[in-house]
């Protein structure tokens, strides 16, 4: 059997694919962060909390309202997006002119409140969440057994990520958004409602996090703490990709998932830290991140 560094090639391929699955989550979450930072200049620390809310809402919808997974995949991001509008209008709005630190502190506070609320109602050990029956089972790819659900995760996240990228980079709405961040007063003078655009951007960013949360629910423990365990890694991904760079966030997210997957084979103990090692190196060599522009 062919081997690479003492690991059979099929096993390595399997691990690469798994890395890509995890990378999909990183990509979706860091994309939302990048969009929000790019447009609002806010470091959205509450991103992990919105991710958690997506998963918890999906569970609640299925448990209390009898809705199915697909309905919640649509509904949970909408609810979280609406909540995002409220938060942006009531709280974040006042911070745009201030230092990044204030936005970070406020969103960190939102995280604590959201986690605390869910924790006091539902405890920490999490809720049962099954893979939807349509995607149960697995496909034999020859080199590995790939659960159908994981394949769906990669597919869904790629479609969503590149959809968002195309929306912002290739459409006239995206052009307005970008112009709005560059010079809001000028764009407003053309009769464009910039504050509304900003609200919707924030809503879209957090809806992406909720979407990722619903996607993750059948795979990992659905608990109030699930977001805070992931968010630090995702921030590292954003820093590596370059703050505010949309394509950077997607590509780095997927790439780091793969690197992490390989670490799990060669030195599993380091798999939680490898992302930060990469971050340190990137910051030394390219302080603005791989895809970022120096300001």
């Amino acid at each position, binding site marked *: 059997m062919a081997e690479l560094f003492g690991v059979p090639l099929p096993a390595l391929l399997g691990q690469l694919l798994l890395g890509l699955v995890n990378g999909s989550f990183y990509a979706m979450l860091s994309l939302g962060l990048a969009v929000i930072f790019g447009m609002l200049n806010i470091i959205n620390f509450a991103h992990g909390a919105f991710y958690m809310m997506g998963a918890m809402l999906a569970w609640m919808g299925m448990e209390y309202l009898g809705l199915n997974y697909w309905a919640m995949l649509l509904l949970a991001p909408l609810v979280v997006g609406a909540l995002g509008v409220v938060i942006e209008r009531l709280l974040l709005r006042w911070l745009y002119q201030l230092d990044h630190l204030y936005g970070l502190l406020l969103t960190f506070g939102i995280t604590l409140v959201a986690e605390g609320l869910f924790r006091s109602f539902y405890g920490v050990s999490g809720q049962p969440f099954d893979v939807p029956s349509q995607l149960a089972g697995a496909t034999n790819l020859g080199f590995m057994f790939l659960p159908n659900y994981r394949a769906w995760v990669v597919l869904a996240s790629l479609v969503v990520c590149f959809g968002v990228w195309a929306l912002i980079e290739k459409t006239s709405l995206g052009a307005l958004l970008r112009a709005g961040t560059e010079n809001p007063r000028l764009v407003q003078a053309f009769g464009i409602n910039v504050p509304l655009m900003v609200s919707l951007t924030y809503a879209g960013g957090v809806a992406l996090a909720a979407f990722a949360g619903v996607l993750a629910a059948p795979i990992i423990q659905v608990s109030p703490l699930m977001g805070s365990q992931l968010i630090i890694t995702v921030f590292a991904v954003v820093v590596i990709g370059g703050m505010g760079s949309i394509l950077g966030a997607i590509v780095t997210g997927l790439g780091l998932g793969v690197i992490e997957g390989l670490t799990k084979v060669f030195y599993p103990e*380091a798999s939680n830290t490898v992302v930060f090692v990469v971050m340190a190196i990137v910051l030394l060599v390219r302080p603005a991140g791989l895809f970022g522009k120096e300001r």
Partner: protein
Amino acid sequence: MKLKQIALATLAACGFAGAAQAQISGDVVKIGFLTDMSSVYADIDGSGGVEAIKMAIADMKGMVAGKKIEFIYADHQNKADVASAKAREWFDTQGVDMLIGGTNSGTALAMATVAAEKHKPFIVIGAGSARLTNEACTPYTVHYAYDTVALARGTVNPMVKAGGKSWYFLTADYAFGASLQADATEVIQKAGGKVLGAVKHPLNANDFSSFLLQAQGSGAQILGLANAGGDTINSIKAANEFGITKSMKLAGLLMFINDVHSVGLKAAEGMYVTDSWYWNQTPEAREWSRRFFDKMKRMPSSLQAADYSAVTHYLQAVDKLKTDEGDKVMAQMKAAPVKDFYSAGSIRKEDGRFVHDMFLMQVKSPKESTEPWDYYKVTARIPGDDAFTKLADSKCPLVKK
């Protein structure tokens, strides 16, 4: 007026005389409880543990030896330094007479040192490290509910006997995981099985699929999960997803009923779990658990039942002696046998290990489960002497050999 004063003085004098006779420090018996109230272990003990202790005190009508019982608790945040500082503060300034240690072995080891220094009884419920009654034993520590040795023996022995000779471990990369794996490995080898390998994963790993593929590649019959809480839950979820449960049997070395609740019966079905107690095991256990359920809206874990049992045992000792003096109460707790809805047995004089039967349970299938929280069938009762470390093998310096 004068008469009234004299009457009062006489009354007070009687009160003092009574106190002197009863020797209750500060005229109250104060119980302190330090556990994880907010993080990963908060469900298996936490606020449920607080409620269980309150139930124990309420069942004594809030009084012991004619004095009031007071109860305080705090969150140690799974930090050993927070736990030992809080314990010291409670003993020094709050007059705490007995300390109960909740989940997390690191914090329990730290509290044990403080309690021994202050000559106060310390009952460990939630922490699992067998070190507490071995290398780190003290005359004031009682290890009440379970330990890593008992868990390893309980789960491993029957599985090896049933033909599960080859094992592979998925181990959390910190002290607890390593000791759980080491304890289990010893039992496997003694029973004639062998360990084919292990993969160490970081604590709170985000995804287990890649570790599980490595485990599957080993060709072992049994996958031992030497981890806890969310890590165990995520391991089981991924094992099901990747069809690993079809080729390997899973053995959770530390699982509580709350973990099974979170995984869901569909994924956990057929797994073996060792625990000290299950809410549905006897009529008495059921009756107490219903009372608990009415307050908490969930069934108690074994730890919460043990919280109740341990506090009751302590209060009975104080009531019998009419004193809360540490050394005397310790001697009485070790002399009197425990027999209640939680367990039956006695606390070993030498090292403070509460030796009682443990239970091997199998998780029911969704069809077999007839009501919420009806999750286990008890498949074996493991006598306490077989489950826990024997005195002859103890590493406790207090044990004279």
